[in-house]
């Protein structure tokens, strides 16, 4: 059994982001990247499946990133993934084309299960898993908070706005991980060093035979002013007066 885990490289959300000079992206200077936390949850789930239900499972991490993206694949390897594949690509992409690249890899690798984060914490698009299922014609179970293996496939608990929805699907399938699926393990330096001995396979969109045709183009970005002004008012009528003053209420 093969489990494929797409891993996205995202800017560290705790760090301060600056726009680039053209205001069509983030200034890459002094920017640090991490493995998308939802993808880390997906990696963890794949490892747990290997540790419990399917000891024969092979866990493959895949990333589409510039050459430096290797570092984040190392994190997945340090956590315990068996192999990693880097699709080297420097230019912007969009979810549809990411799905196409992944579909090409999937055609080659033939995994039984694709486990990925429900969304990436940079653009929060929440589309790649769904597009990928559509392109492959596979069943999908998004926002998973629990995955169980049953005779003919898997049973997945989905976190929806209305509550937990339990669905059953055959395999192969696409499952996207929600926050409560698990708590990822901590990869310490020795395991990162050990992971350095594992090789990372390299490929490119061209080698995969995919010509990227962007459907989404980023036109511009702007920073929101998050400076807040706080003031303590004594009474409710004072509050109302203030709100009228600032034209929050009429």
């Amino acid at each position, binding site marked *: 059994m093969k489990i494929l885990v797409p891993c996205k490289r995202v800017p*560290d959300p*705790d*760090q*301060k982001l600056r726009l680039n000079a053209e205001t069509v992206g983030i200034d890459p200077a002094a920017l*640090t990247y*991490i493995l998308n936390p939802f993808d880390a949850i997906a990696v963890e789930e794949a490892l747990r499946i290997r540790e419990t239900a399917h000891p024969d499972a092979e866990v493959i991490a895949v990333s589409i990133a510039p050459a430096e993206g290797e570092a984040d694949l190392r994190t997945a390897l340090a*956590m*315990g993934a068996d192999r990693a594949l880097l699709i080297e690509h420097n230019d912007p992409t969009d979810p549809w084309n990411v799905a196409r690249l992944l579909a090409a890899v999937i055609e080659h690798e033939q995994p039984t299960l694709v486990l990925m984060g429900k969304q990436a914490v940079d653009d929060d698009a929440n589309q790649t898993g769904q597009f990928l299922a559509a392109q492959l014609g596979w069943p999908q179970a998004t926002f998973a908070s629990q995955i169980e293996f049953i005779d003919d496939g898997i049973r997945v608990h989905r976190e929806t706005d209305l509550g937990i929805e339990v669905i059953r699907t055959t395999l192969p399938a696409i499952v996207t991980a929600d926050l409560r699926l698990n*708590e*990822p*393990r*901590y*990869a*310490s*330096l*020795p*395991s990162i*060093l*050990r992971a350095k001995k594992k090789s990372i396979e390299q490929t490119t969109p061209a080698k995969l035979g995919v010509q990227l045709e962007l459907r989404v183009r980023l036109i511009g970005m702007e920073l929101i002013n998050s400076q807040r002004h706080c003031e303590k008012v004594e009474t409710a009528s004072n509050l109302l007066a203030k709100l009228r003053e600032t034209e929050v209420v009429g």
Partner: protein
Amino acid sequence: MTEDLSREIFGNLGETSKTIFYALAAVSSGVFAWGVWRRVKLWRRGRPDNEPIKWREAFQNIRNRALAQRALRGARPKASFAHRILFWGFLVLFIGTILVSIEHYSAAALGREATDPLFHKGVYFVIYEITLDTFGLLMIGGAVWFARRRMRADSSMEHRTADWLVLASLIILGVTGYFIEGLRIIRESTPMPGISFVGYGFSKIFVAAGVGKSNVDSIHFGLWWFHSVVAFGFIAALPFCRLAHAIAAVFSLATTPKPLGQMEPISMEEVEETGEVGVGRLEQFTQRDLLQLDACVSCGRCEDLCPAYEAGKPLSPRDLVQDLRMHMEGAAPAVLHGETIGAETLWACTTCNACNDICPLGVRPADYITDLRRHLIGEGELRGAPATSLQKMQRAGNPWGLPAQDRLKWADGLDVPTVANNPDFDVLYWVGCSAAYDRRTMKVARAVAQLLQRAQVNFAVLGPEERCTGESARRIGDEFLFQELAATNIETFTKHNVRKIVTHCPHCLNSLRQDYPQFDGHYEVIHHTQFLGELVAANKLKAAAVMNETVTYHDPCYLARVNGITDAPRTLLPDNLKEMPRSGCQTACCGAGGGRMWFDDPAEERTGTGRITEALDTGAKTVAVSCPFCLTMMTDGVATKNDQVKVRDVSELMLEDN
């Protein structure tokens, strides 16, 4: 008149008896030696200890802690007293027996008759008899006391059936010894029998009960053999029962204990070679660690002080050591991690060092824990909030993962000098992550900086160049994250020619003092309370004035117990300080050490809730602290119980009066 004073050794015993006696002695010593060797073999499963034995210190340690029984100070006064009299009684009787054998063999070697002793006579004999009769009573008294204690004990006292045998043997040996002495006095008509005052008393009773010249020989003979057989059995059983602690203790105390708060570094080369970190299997402990498991007599003094145990967490340092000991003996379960010792037990420890400090025989429960934690970290067993904090330390150099550029936010509007704009500073103020990013602790840094400015100290801060010391990473078990952070900081210190560091964080202080020198970072590191104390002494600042309301002070573990700094903060506080029952070096942990700071327990379930109650019970309206972790824990804990009480750093209280 004292010339005739003596007694015949092996009196009333024929050659056959002597032969049987020596045969039994040989068997008994053989079993004893075999029993000890069995344990030694278990200890030798560990890694060789590279630390050479420092004979002078070993000798002092054994003299002070074992012979003088000084290690028992500070807790359980009654049991300690009983142990002392039992031990000293036993020791003196043991020495007495050796003196008798020296007399016997040297007299025999010189061809003297049994009735013509070499030195076991006269004044020496008087002193000998009085001393031994006295110490015999002490031994019996101690044993009886312990037996009574064991009868009344609740389930918290670890108990084995063999413990009764140990106490019974000691009492029987003592009492029959006096009986035999009494019978000997009747038999030999020893002059001045009063010097053997207990035996003499018994001789009177025996005479009254009808013992006389006609029957004394056979009764003496029978009782003498009973006494001897019990003694041989006792010697043979020693390495197999609880008293084995006395044997292991000699070895344990002979190894020089590390100062509290110091950890053994691991090298990356070692890990690359073995592929393993920390202790995953028993054999990865050192031989010293393993022999110390046998020194544990399961007294439970550590458990009495353990803050995790007090808070109902799944950790008792005593049980941990005993479980490891059983595991070493090969008792089930055969798997160390997960079965013998659970991960939750290991994570529960705050490394407050109370157990390491109290153990009379030098066992270091918390050190086993940190060694075992290293393995868990290496295996990726840490999850959730603390794992996230370590990840953030790894990528951003602070447990919150926040930008290094924000490290001076606390100093907004204060004009605090940095190493960049004041390169000729005398002292570096180490701010630490908590004061750099936590809004509450920022106020502490502001207070310290303002006090330093008012006293016109030539100081500087590192600002964006500062990184987490790695203290909590190291104690949670992530040795290499710590080493990486330490290397970065040491490089920064070198770059700015840092020699003297003042910090308001005892964890940073201990790390800079005890961890960094292991990686060639040698600095003079002092706590802000010490530095502010110097400034007060030099009349550059004033201590906090007496307040109308009661103030109590909570000693941080890493400041007081680990680094012995208890006076400095008190000199800065008002005189009307109301002390908590556990204070100074005997402080109780707030619950945040050893990386526990990064675990997201709800305030009411945290280790240290007992400490909050203790602080509030003083009736204090202000709880003074001198550690950012204690500040957080105390503030959160107090808030769940009494919102009228304020928690303040010592420097904040001082700022009000300067």
